[in-house]
């Protein structure tokens, strides 16, 4: 009995600690200022979002996000880098619908672009709008002919540019329904410093002149295909300190150097995006450097023991 009482007391104290927890507020929408000469970013917030969190609205801070949570879904802002993500709950009728948008992708692109520009993404920074398409099907596996997948709707993605230079890792996308409501969105549009913006301009200029281009390319590894000047920055998923740089991005195709090592069926090749800064130095983005130390568990069972004894 005493043990039960002690447990209940501990449980009550724990609950009271939960209730006293103070939760930070997610930020409001607005421009993210840069240094002088740089390029402003955009912070997305629930105040300008067309996402509905539903009833029982409350604020929570968990898993690195500050959130507004409701019966229909959650609007969350990454406390580290400002990434804004809104996601409908799986059990919401809106999430379970297999057809939520009946227009075409071009119409959806325009609606989403207007929405984000209206919310505060600078129009001159919108480099393009592209749609991804959602489809679904269900059937018995023996059913022939197989039922054709049906289109449920689209996601429209805004790509970013500063001047004529693409800012590859900035993304704003949304999935909207026929009622103009946002079902899911993801916005990461950080400010870009004056140095990075200027470096990108200098790289474009440098690569437009034959002599300068030759002098630059000789600093790179040999036999690379032609590249493109872009601005790269930390991914929305990175928890590392923010990095951005002007880059000459090259898409390199690699095949196995020795065809005899290509065992197994079919041949393989890989395409790898390599980044070179204004000095010709190869760079890796924080998300490309992410690596944990050591395997886990630290030792693996030897194959003799792994083999089935049958």
């Amino acid at each position: 009995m005493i043990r039960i009482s002690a447990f209940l007391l501990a449980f009550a104290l724990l609950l009271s600690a939960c209730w006293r927890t103070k939760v930070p507020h997610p930020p409001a929408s607005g421009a993210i200022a840069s240094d002088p000469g740089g390029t402003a970013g955009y912070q997305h917030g629930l105040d300008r979002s067309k996402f509905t969190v539903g009833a029982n609205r409350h604020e929570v801070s968990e898993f690195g996000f500050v959130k507004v949570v409701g019966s229909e879904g959650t609007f969350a802002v990454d406390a580290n880098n400002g990434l804004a993500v809104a996601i409908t709950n799986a059990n919401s009728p809106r999430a379970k619908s297999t057809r939520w948008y009946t227009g075409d992708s071009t119409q959806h692109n325009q609606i989403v672009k207007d929405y984000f520009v209206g919310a505060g993404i600078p129009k001159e920074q919108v480099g393009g709008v592209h749609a991804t398409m959602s489809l679904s099907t269900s059937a018995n596996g023996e059913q022939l002919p197989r039922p054709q997948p049906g289109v449920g709707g689209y996601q429209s993605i805004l790509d970013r540019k500063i001047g004529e230079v693409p800012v590859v890792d900035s993304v704003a996308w949304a999935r909207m329904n026929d009622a103009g409501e946002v079902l899911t969105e993801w916005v990461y549009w950080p400010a870009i410093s004056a140095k990075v913006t200027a470096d990108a301009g200098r790289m474009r200029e440098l690569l437009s002149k034959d002599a300068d281009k030759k002098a630059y390319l000789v600093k790179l590894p040999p036999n690379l295909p032609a590249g493109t000047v872009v601005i790269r920055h930390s991914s929305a998923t990175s928890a590392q300190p923010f990095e951005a740089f002007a880059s000459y991005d090259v898409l390199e195709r690699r095949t196995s150097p020795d065809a005899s090592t290509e065992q197994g069926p079919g041949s393989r090749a890989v395409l790898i995006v390599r980044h070179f800064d204004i000095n010709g130095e190869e760079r890796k983005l924080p998300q490309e450097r992410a690596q944990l130390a050591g395997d886990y568990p630290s030792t693996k069972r030897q194959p003799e023991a792994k083999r089935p004894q049958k």
Partner: protein
Amino acid sequence: MPGKVSSKFTIVKRFGSSVIIAPACLTILMMCGCGGTSNGLVVESVNNYSLRNGPSLSNSVANGDGFIKGMTVAGSPWSLTTRWTDLNVWDTDFMDPDTRQAIGDDGANFDKPGTAISYFTGHGFCTAGCSSQSCTTTSACTTPNAAAGDRLPGTCRFSPLDKPRCCYMTDRMAATSGQFDANNGVVNYTSGPVRWGESSTSGGWAQADTNGGTNLVILDISCGILPTFWYEALRNAAAGVHMIGTLLIAGGDTANVSDRGAAFAKMWAANPEGSVSQAWLDTMSALPLSEGRGINGYGCNIMVAMDGSLQAVDQKMNESWSDLRNDNNDSKGNSWYSARWQCNYALSATDKFAWELP
């Protein structure tokens, strides 16, 4: 600049201790009322293909580790049980010794009991099964090249890059380059000794005992599925697992990007009540355009659920992340399927078919 961004979040640091307490309370409360849950993470990542099945990759380990980091933030209900990389990833990790071929050790690795999510990132084989025979209907595709490993059924397949032509069913396979590979680094999940998710709650209907347990498999590889064989490609491996997510290629190949896994994890962290299947699909839209949204060319993120009834597969496709941990949801069969895709291109308004002329 980020300084400005982070200044908006200084309040998080100010209330740091409270922020830590809240998720801890939530986790304890959840643990009080539940049983039969799996929360383990198994991640196997291969960059180094120096032994076989090359060329080597550069982003798989960062990709797998990004997933781990994102899923194991403070207060997370998930726990890492296995991380193997490079030469420590063996083809036997994925194979079930209780199948007829009696090879493998998946119960200690990729399909370890108590696992919620098993994530492999590395190479896949892209044998397409396509002929040069042009077509206007699938019923015309009846002559597979058996010598090349093709077999029926056929499909009159097209893509943004290819005019309609007859293609046939071929096995789908992941590739390893392990120090102790037993099958040349070939993991044939279409017809090989692979069964995932068999458990005491799923039952032993897949004839692979009940000693597995993963609830979600992600195959972040080349050509995980080719259209339109989503059911045929995965039925063999679906032995209790709730869902299998991978990439479907429609002209081109999977890009070996560093942050697909991390983007998937962010979806969970942002809303644990969100849909797992939708989260995998939405990682596509979160990736940079210049890297094809994770695909060089045209293709889709795909999630497939299998179970014994239409109602059951629809339930799985709508699972939240907490539903995913519930072993009572393990599949009791694989005769029905539900599949969802998100593709990096859109059909024109007049197109009625996605990948196949029926």
